[in-house]
């Protein structure tokens, strides 16, 4: 599993996959994609690099606390669910707004996208923290 070929491929793929996962997250509302898929994609490439390079090697240079990621995601998602309440709307009411920006064109802002970002972080955080814990377990 730790041949030069896999190492090389992982190295090349890593930034591309991370970018693609973010684009999946952002595109999700209108095109195939979304927080869950994006999150799983992000998690798989990190997991792959753990397997290929070894957990310790990766952790020496890049070691976020994945537990915080899913905590943050859950808080973000719950926050968007409650955010409509102070404005007199129902729980989980979503809002859509269109912005016209010169040169770029029209951008759609959806409150549900914020919720989806929460999902994204929860998926990444929980998958990778499980992965890391199982990997570190002797």
């Amino acid at each position, binding site marked *: *599993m730790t041949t030069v070929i896999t190492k090389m491929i992982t190295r090349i793929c890593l930034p591309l996959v991370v970018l693609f996962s973010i684009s*999946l997250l952002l595109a*999700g*509302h*209108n*095109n*195939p*994609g*979304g*927080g*869950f*898929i994006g999150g*799983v*994609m992000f*998690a*798989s490439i990190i*997991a*792959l690099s*753990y*397997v290929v390079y070894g957990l310790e090697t990766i952790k020496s240079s890049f070691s976020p606390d994945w*537990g915080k990621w*899913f*905590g943050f*995601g*859950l808080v973000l*998602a*719950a926050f968007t*669910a409650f955010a409509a309440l102070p404005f007199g709307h129902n*729980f*989980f009411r*979503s809002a*859509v707004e269109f912005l016209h920006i010169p040169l770029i064109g029209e951008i*759609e802002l*959806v409150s*549900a*996208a914020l*919720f*989806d970002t*929460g*999902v994204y972080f*929860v*998926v990444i*955080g*929980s*998958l990778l*923290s*499980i*992965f890391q*814990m*199982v*990997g570190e*377990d002797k």
Partner: protein
Amino acid sequence: MDPFISVTLAVFLPFLLALAVPAVEKLIKHRIGWFASFIALISFLLVISLVPLVIHGEHFQASVEWIPSMGIEYSIYVDGLSILFGIIITGIGIIIMSYSNGYMGLKEDLPRYYQWLLLFMGSMLGMVFAANTIMLFIFWELTSITSFMLIGYWRNKPESVYGATKSLLVTAAGGLFMLAGFIVLRSITGTFDIPAILQNETLIQTVQGHKLFLAALILIFIGAASKSAQGPFYIWLPNAMEAPTPVSAFLHSATMVKAGIYLVARVHPIFSGTEAWFILVSGTGIITMLVAGFLAFRQIDIKALLAYSTISQLAYIMTMYGYTTYQEPGIGVAAATFHLLNHATFKACLFLVAGIVAHEAATRDITRLGGLRHEMPITFIIATIGALSMAGVPPLNGFLSKEMFYESSIEMGHALGSPFTFIIPALAVAGGVFTFAYSIKFIAAIFLGKRPEKGLPSHIHDPSFVMIIPAAFLAGLIILFGLVPSIAVQNLVEPTASSIMMEAQHLHVKLWHGLTGSLVMTLITFLLGIAVYTRYDSIAEWQNSFNRKYPFISINYIYDGLVNNAKGTLKRFSSFMQPGPVKGYVLALLVLMIILFAIPFLKLSTGFIQTLNFNVEPYEFLVFFFMIVAAVGAAVLPKYLPAVISLSALGYLVSLLFIYLSAPDLALTQVLVETLSTIIFLLAIVKIPQTFKEHITPSLFTRDALIAVSVASVVFILLVNATQGIIPPFESLSYYFIEKAWPLAGGHNIVNVIIVDFRGYDTLGEISVMCLAALGVYNLIHSRGESE
């Protein structure tokens, strides 16, 4: 300020600021207790600001919709009763949190302690201001949970854990009975709103004449009795004394145990005036008063003694609420309310004294204490004031409300007629005699007599002012309310009694009101009390020997039996349900699935599809062929690695199929999940043997093959029927989503819109489950290391 905002702030500030406690603790270290007292002070001022609103018996209500379809609202109700409780909760809260600064050692986990205290205070306030029964129930159970956490504060002590569990089991279960009672009440009245019932004379009459009246009354009263440690439910309170003493003073004498009393007072107009009300409330009250007062004698822990006395004193209050059926109702209610306030002052004061003694003398055992009056003179004076007030000695506040209790007992006796004219006052005096005797014992055992030769630290002294001042303040209130009762009566008791009775009440409380029947009863109580006190130790000894001889005549015996039995049964049940190997679980699931799916199809004997319409392209055949090969490979390959790769090949082929069926989201998800699970397999595979070790016998093979084939056929039949079968066609839900996704949620990807918008609440639940799964894995991995 708008009363609605005041109440909401008073309730939720403690909740919100409790979250900030760990951060603030980083800044101000062990002075965090003062921060907590400050929060309590804010809530106190907010509650005080509402007093003018209700001083003449008025009330105020406001609400915000929560679940309108079910009539559940965030709805507050401010009246004399809720204000009285609000003042007791926040006032005693300030005193307790300040006192804790001296009591709790610096090495304790202070943020956790103050967080739970604040959460408790917020829940308790929420409960007394709730107008909606469901909201009341939620805060009610929150007080049970916070009480559980505070009793179990020293989590390494088995006694704390036992006491905490017991209190949670009894009070939370009681709360469920109460909820059932509320639902019955709703089915009678059609509303969850308490004031709506209180203010509607005809509705109250409907309730009292309804055939479910008794059910509602008994269910709600079980809730009240379990919380206030009345009747058989008293057992949790003595064990709750394992909590830190300030907690006992706050929760288990002044506030939480009074929640049951609050509930009885709150529903008083609905249920009172009936025979059932008198028998249930006063009956339970009188029995509890006598039994708990009597059982206090054998307690050697000063806090346990106070716990039994709390039970007994609460029973006085209960009894008076029950009396209202057969007398001019205002008197009993006012007397009960006054005693409630007085009890909060003198009992909290005595608990603080108990805390001081335990803190300085390092023991709470009355057989090892004694003669401390010289070393702790200030504490001695404060304790004497508190204990004499509890015993009902003039001119302290306990005397006044005890007199009122006697007075209403005499009236009660007259109303019921012979032989109760004598029996009820006699029972009341008996309760008073027990109270008098153990009150004297409390003083005598700690402060009087000779100092024991050994067992006590050599230097004992009055504690620092941090602990003395709160106790002294309460002692001051005891004297103040005794000498000038009108302060408390006019500002707190009359508005409360008026709000309970739903009409203005006026009360004349004086220290000297002539040689009345109640004064005679008080004198008899003192004489008999002294007589009983001289026999105190022999009574305690008799109780101990009785308990040794008949250990099974005790409610604790039944409780322990039930709980231990339940533990054993659950252990057997879980070892049956969770034998270990994953294969067993999968087997059980699949068999159940076969049964559940097969039954409806066997019933629909109209036959299966006659003509199957398969439009299969040649390349699809190719995909299916490879899928079969991969599936067979996963099943028969002898080593893990090839089998896993074969399995993932199957997964990728399925996603290929999804693309043909134009479901790009599904295909994408399938590919990613397949990739991730393959990586996880690869990670795990290096740690386990490379080959399957299970030996497959022919019979095992037959069984597994049979199950596999059945599952396959069931799924096949299901799919065929779902797509083109005998199930009558119905309008597909997808049209709704296709139509509404863009106008309602502004999204073109319907799958995603469903996940994050239409079914957003489900998704929130699912991601919570994911987080829980991660935490579960953490616990599994870390706890395994410990147990080995």
